């Protein structure tokens, strides 16, 4: 079942959808929740979508079963996306509208808000109660959820919200007799409700990040906000920099001094960081940077989603140096890969990039608790203890692997020279061609070779039987999985990459050989993944399903496009 809550920015849609998500999770059901915002603080149309299921859910559906309209404008916007037997909850008295018939349920939730608390401000809680009442879920769960959502509010405010919800709930119980939307309580769902940015934040904390610097930019900002909430308890310094250039240079400085550091931004901010990325490559300083993609070029759609920075991230930076680029597909991967990013960055003294997008950043799912044994910090710097034994230290000592031991300033007796000019093993400026070649080999070839050996293996699903294999990276994992599972006769399979650089060429070539036909699924216009596959493996896929309207794929849309592709061959 899909529930949509729509209204103007500032009407508290997110609070209701989060409350409802908690309600259904408490009832043992699985949840997928996503937010669709406009780039404004008040007005416009924003909505939240909540999928509730007895089975785990990973993505959106095309149509909504219950649509809650908090303002008049929402009615016409969301009417076309109602499921055939769906219902729309409106407040005719407040909106002055005439919609009647089986698809509409009129509930005076603005009036209820005034009755409960003397203000229309509580209309969202009343509407939440109306929606919950329609699903016949126990009101006790609604009450618990509201208490949690408004935990930081004064007791009387919590009381009023609960009272408003109760009025809504009782109204539905009285006037909405049908069991069409009644939910059965499930056995058990994952016990955490979390979105991609929250998972990255927790991954950073677990991964030992002690310094974070960024400039606010949607949709990355919530990482900085989340981390700030925990900064005091975990001794983390979060520094809002004057610009993204400062942010990346600051984390390079902290990392040089031995502290695990991270920054996050979106494409435009990442463009400013590119010079610093190159510096991290040259200095061989480990850093972790997140690009939460949004539609571009330039400002684009600030609050929407896209996957068009793939080419940008794997190539960003002047000159040649090693890097790794992760593209987590799920909330769980966002957590584990963030921890891994810190370990890998330090192991090879390279920048590691985490490429997500607004869809993964802001979508919540119920998940099982993380396995901390799979999220362990592995340190690769010379420990304080071992530092005592270091003599004749050379920061860029040429070694077999290309990786020079990394010491922390003041822990060793020697001094450390790190330089962005081409440098000698000691770190002093040189113009010697032979040294230059050794240093390029070290920074680029040797490290890339080692990185390729421990690349994340792509996920493969139902390759051999399928008529068509979908290939995607990053946030399309869930939608590919559900489209495949929902297609009868095992006609669809998928391959998902959670690391795109170094490109897992051997894995992908091997997997694609088993596919009858393959198309890429990408939230961009340029079929960047298809081209990357061709560049890296020589294999040309049979087409690409592209979506670049700034909105994420949903399972119905992808299923339909995939079956067209099966029938038509090329797109």
């Amino acid at each position, binding site marked *: 079942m899909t529930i949509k809550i729509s209204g103007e920015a500032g009407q508290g849609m997110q609070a209701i959808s989060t409350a409802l998500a908690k309600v259904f999770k408490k009832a043992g059901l699985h949840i997928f929740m996503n937010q669709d915002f406009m780039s404004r603080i008040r007005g416009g149309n924003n909505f939240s979508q909540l999928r509730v299921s007895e089975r785990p859910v990973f993505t959106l559906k095309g149509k909504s079963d219950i649509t809650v309209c908090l303002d008049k404008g929402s009615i016409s916007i969301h009417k076309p996306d109602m499921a055939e037997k769906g219902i729309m909850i409106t407040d005719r008295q407040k909106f002055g509208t005439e919609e009647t018939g089986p698809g509409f349920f009129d509930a005076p939730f603005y009036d209820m808000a005034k009755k409960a608390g003397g203000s229309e401000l509580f209309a969202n809680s009343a509407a939440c109660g109306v929606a919950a009442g329609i699903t016949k879920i126990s009101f006790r769960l609604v009450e618990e959820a509201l208490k949690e959502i408004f935990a930081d509010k004064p007791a009387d405010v919590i009381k009023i919200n609960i009272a408003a919800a109760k009025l809504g709930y009782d109204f539905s119980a009285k006037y909405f007799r049908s069991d069409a939307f009644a939910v059965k309580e499930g056995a058990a769902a994952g016990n955490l409700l979390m979105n991609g940015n929250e998972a990255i934040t927790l991954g950073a904390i677990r991964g*030992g990040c002690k310094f974070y610097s960024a400039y606010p930019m949607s949709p990355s900002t919530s990482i900085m906000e989340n981390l700030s909430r925990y900064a005091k308890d975990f*001794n983390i*310094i979060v520094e809002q920099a*004057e610009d993204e250039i400062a942010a990346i*240079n600051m984390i390079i*400085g902290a990392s040089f*001094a031995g502290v695990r550091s991270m920054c996050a931004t979106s494409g435009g901010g990442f463009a400013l960081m590119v010079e*610093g990325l190159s510096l991290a490559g040259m200095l061989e300083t480990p850093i972790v940077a997140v690009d939460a993609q949004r539609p571009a070029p330039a400002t684009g759609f600030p609050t929407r989603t896209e996957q068009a920075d793939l080419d940008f991230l794997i190539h960003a930076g002047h000159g040649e140096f090693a890097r790794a680029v992760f593209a987590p597909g799920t909330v769980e991967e966002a957590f584990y890969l963030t921890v891994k990013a810190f370990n890998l960055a330090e192991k090879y003294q390279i920048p590691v990039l985490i490429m997500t997008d607004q869809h993964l950043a802001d979508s919540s799912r119920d998940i099982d608790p993380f396995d*901390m044994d799979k999220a362990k910090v592995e340190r690769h710097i010379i420990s304080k203890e071992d530092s005592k034994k270091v003599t004749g230290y050379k920061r860029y000592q040429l070694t077999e692997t290309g990786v020079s031991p990394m010491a922390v*300033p003041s822990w060793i007796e020697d001094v450390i020279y790190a330089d962005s000019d081409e440098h000698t093993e000691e770190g002093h400026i040189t113009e010697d061609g032979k040294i230059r070649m050794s240093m390029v080999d070290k920074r680029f070839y040797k490290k890339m070779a080692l990185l390729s050996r421990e690349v994340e293996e792509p996920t493969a699903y139902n390759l051999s039987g399928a008529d068509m294999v979908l290939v995607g990276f990053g946030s399309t994992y869930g939608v590919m999985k559900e489209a495949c599972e929902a297609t009868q006769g095992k006609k669809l399979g998928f391959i998902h990459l959670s690391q795109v650089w170094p490109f897992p060429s051997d894995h992908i070539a091997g997997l694609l050989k088993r596919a009858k036909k393959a198309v890429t699924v990408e939230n961009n216009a340029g079929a960047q993944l298809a081209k990357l596959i061709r560049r890296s493996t020589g294999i040309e896929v049979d087409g690409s399903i592209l979506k670049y309207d700034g909105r994420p794929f949903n399972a119905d849309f992808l299923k339909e496009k995939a079956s067209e592709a099966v029938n038509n061959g090329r797109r």
Partner: protein
Amino acid sequence: MADVKDFISNDPIAWCPGCGDFGILNALKAALVKLGRKPKDIVIASGIGQAAKLPHYIKCNCINGLHGRSLSYASAVKIANRELTVLVTTGDGDCYGEGGNHFIHNIRRNTDITVIVHNNQIYALTKGQASPSTDEGYVTKVQTQGVISEPIRALEMAIVLGAGFVARGYSADMEHLSWLILEGIEHKGFSLVEVLQPCVSFNKKNTYEWYSKRIYKANDDPAYDPGNYVAALQKASEWGDRIPIGIIYKAEKASYEEKSGLNKRPPLVEEKIDDIDITGILKEYA
């Protein structure tokens, strides 16, 4: 006891003979000897330009990065390990031009770093174009009709932005400069030491002779109080027939380390990170 020999680097110096940078290097070494810390406990950050090469010519930890960005990584080095002494050697182009935004905001940030700006009023590494501090009217290969932009008033800017230590030295007066640098290091928070430094190759106006005729020591006047904000601003604005050097402004203020709470706990770099327990926060998502 520290000795000047402790700070000798074997890297050959690539400055022009007679460059004002030599005076700054010697003054810095003398200041560090007096400071008494080991080279391993000192980090010098720099960007690009002739000034930015200095960290190679002294034995201390060095992070020589990008044009204009040195203040960003210098502040972060201090945040990561507050026990380090952190200095920046930068030029007028690096600090006031390319790095102008970082100059503004690192003064506001007020980490305990000392920024030595080698101000030769010209771009030397790129061979003689105007810098943000080149005098109006000075003719270069690019500014062929003479510079038409007004020179930046960095000392006044620094005072207005809230820097707690603003000083100006002269590269030919090593002893005085060395004193200023040491005062800057010992001042808690952001310290600016701008150094007038003749460029013998590209600045034919602001020469040793030109500076020597104009420079006077502000602190020789017992009536001058560097703690007086208004008087300091006025002193910082003097430029022309008389140019003051010395401690122009000095005020005690809380540093970033104090305000962020960093000073109340072990340096960040000492934090144990091998098995951080996040189960407590996971409960918030239940």
